[in-house]
């Protein structure tokens, strides 16, 4: 490990490998509740609506149909890192830094990065452990990129893993305030059960491009939080009515009372989500207006959101302001891999690169909105040809 020279010039960082771990077989829409269970023993009435809205056809669960775990978040994350290292033609011994991202790790403490390093084993590493929702993936990527660009490390891995399904089992909802008078789960709680699923995606970052094949140069990474203006929109740790008051957090009420008042489950405020979608678009338009993003110069768009979930009014705004990236440039795996939270963007990037569709010189824009508390991140990548041997 070398120490950064005070006068060192910033280097470029390249994504030289990627890997994915998706547990089990793809699960079709009509089998979802065989895995996550039926709250109060009854089929959800909200599920079909959620599926129409998100357009997901299959997903993966790290559970058996009996609800037994097949993996941990850490073990899935470690498998994705190993796959990415193998794809890069490297091994665990080459790794100097590991940056991880997740919404909820296996333990409350310590961080997910420690758990993944534990699973990977091997020599000491620098760790960075990011916990948020979808955009935690880009926090990890940005931390690793900064380390490689400043010359602190030559090789870093970034992994985002999620094991959402275990939180969707009936035990998290039954006998809580999240059930209405007829024993049905509220929309705020039930919708996400049909939206999120499990898996992990990893990238390997190096300070040099690959010689033998194409790789991706990181042009820039921008992350913008608007939490100063908005209340939590997707959260766990407080019932809906109390979510803006941190003094009412679950940790103050204690575990039993918190479970009873519905503070433990993952919840989403749909009225606020509509406002936050416009706020995300605002951040994007700002980048178009300032020239940071030139829509005509983007060849591929990986948007961690389904086009069909965007209301027509948003598409109209993007078109009328010349900020729309035409839908034929959008690439997604969402309908087949499901929404894997933080892992989704790396899973999509892995699939796009391995599809062989991206030519050297083409630019890929990744957009990762996070409804948690109004955040959105962007990554601009450029495909570069293999460096020649000189």
């Amino acid at each position, binding site marked *: 490990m070398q120490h950064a020279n005070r006068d060192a010039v910033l280097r470029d960082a390249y994504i030289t490998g990627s890997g994915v771990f998706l547990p089990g077989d793809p699960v079709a829409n009509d089998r979802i509740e065989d895995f996550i269970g039926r709250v109060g023993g009854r089929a959800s009435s909200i599920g079909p609506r959620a599926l129409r809205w998100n357009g997901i056809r299959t997903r993966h669960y790290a559970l058996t149909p009996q609800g037994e775990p097949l993996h941990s978040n850490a073990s899935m994350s470690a498998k994705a890192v190993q796959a990415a290292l193998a794809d890069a033609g490297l091994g665990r011994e080459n790794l100097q830094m590991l940056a991880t991202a997740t919404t909820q790790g296996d333990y409350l403490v310590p961080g997910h990065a420690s758990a993944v390093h534990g699973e990977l084993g091997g020599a000491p590493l620098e760790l960075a452990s990011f916990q948020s929702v979808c955009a935690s993936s880009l926090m990890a990527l940005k931390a690793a990129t900064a380390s490689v660009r400043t010359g602190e490390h030559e090789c870093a891995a970034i992994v985002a893993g999620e094991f959402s399904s275990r939180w969707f089992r009936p035990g998290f909802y039954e006998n809580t305030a999240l059930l209405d008078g007829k024993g049905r789960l509220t929309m705020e709680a039930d919708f996400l059960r049909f939206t999120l699923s499990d898996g992990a995606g990893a990238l390997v970052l190096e300070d040099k491009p690959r010689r033998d094949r194409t790789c991706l140069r990181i042009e820039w990474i921008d992350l913008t939080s*608007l939490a100063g*203006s*908005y*209340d939590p929109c997707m959260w766990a740790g407080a019932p*809906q*009515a109390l979510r*803006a008051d941190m003094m009412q957090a679950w940790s103050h009420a204690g575990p039993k009372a918190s479970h009873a008042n519905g503070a433990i489950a993952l919840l989403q405020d749909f*009225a*606020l989500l*509509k*406002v936050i979608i*416009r*706020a995300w*678009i*605002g*951040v994007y*338009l*700002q980048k*178009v*207006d300032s020239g940071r993003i030139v829509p005509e110069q983007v060849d591929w768009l990986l948007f961690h959101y389904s086009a069909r979930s965007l209301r*027509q*009014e948003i598409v*109209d*705004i993007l078109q*009328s*302001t*010349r*900020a729309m990236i035409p839908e034929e440039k959008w690439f997604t795996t969402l309908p087949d891999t499901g929404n894997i939270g933080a892992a989704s963007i790396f899973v999509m990037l892995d699939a796009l690169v391995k599809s062989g569709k991206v030519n050297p010189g083409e630019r890929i824009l990744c957009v990762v909105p996070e409804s948690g508390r109004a955040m959105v991140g962007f990554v601009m990548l450029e495909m570069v040809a293999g460096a020649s041997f000189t």
Partner: protein
Amino acid sequence: MSVVDVSVAELSSARDLAVSDALRKLALVWTDFEARLEATPLIRKLTRGRFELADYQNFLINLRQQVKDGSLWMSRAASSIDEQHLELRSTLMKHAVTEHRDFRMLEADYVAAGGTLSAIQNAKKNIGSEALSGWMFNEASQRNPFGLLGAMFIIEGLGSIKAQEWGKLAHDRLGLPKDAFNFLLYHGENDAEHMREFEEMLALVLPDEQVAERIVTCAKVVARLYVMQIEEIAA
């Protein structure tokens, strides 16, 4: 293609570009405006489930004074537009006619929400509404006050984007009959139609750099003064 055709094509493409540039800047003003609105005490109460009947009544009272002035400044603006821009003048006059009785809807909602007609009719403007109204009339009195298109973008956006959202939250929270929410729930329908009409209005005055800048500036001023108006509504 003749020389005339080329220049017509160039003109229309320059106009399209100017319109989409202005719309993008206006959309940015809008998102900043929305974030500021979210942070006002009244809207915080609404989104955090703390909104009471008194809040709703106050909201209606304060909206009425501003809505009543809306068609008046629009008429004033129409009368300040010269004969080179008759098309825009017609559009503004039509708008003013469509909206000039809307404040009656607010009065009816207020009565349905348990208030008395005289209370809402005799209430004073809050200082935010004072500032907003005063500024609007001043701008509308200038020659060719095209900047007010920016003001319209914000005010129309409130109608087509925020009104229903607020109306639904207030209705769910207060349990009053739907006829106490006519203004918020049914006033701002037909988004796409409004947007197309607005683009056509922009195309009547653009491309013109100074006008474009004034439109965006007016949108910013109106957004800030409107937030002040909402901030001043306290139960």
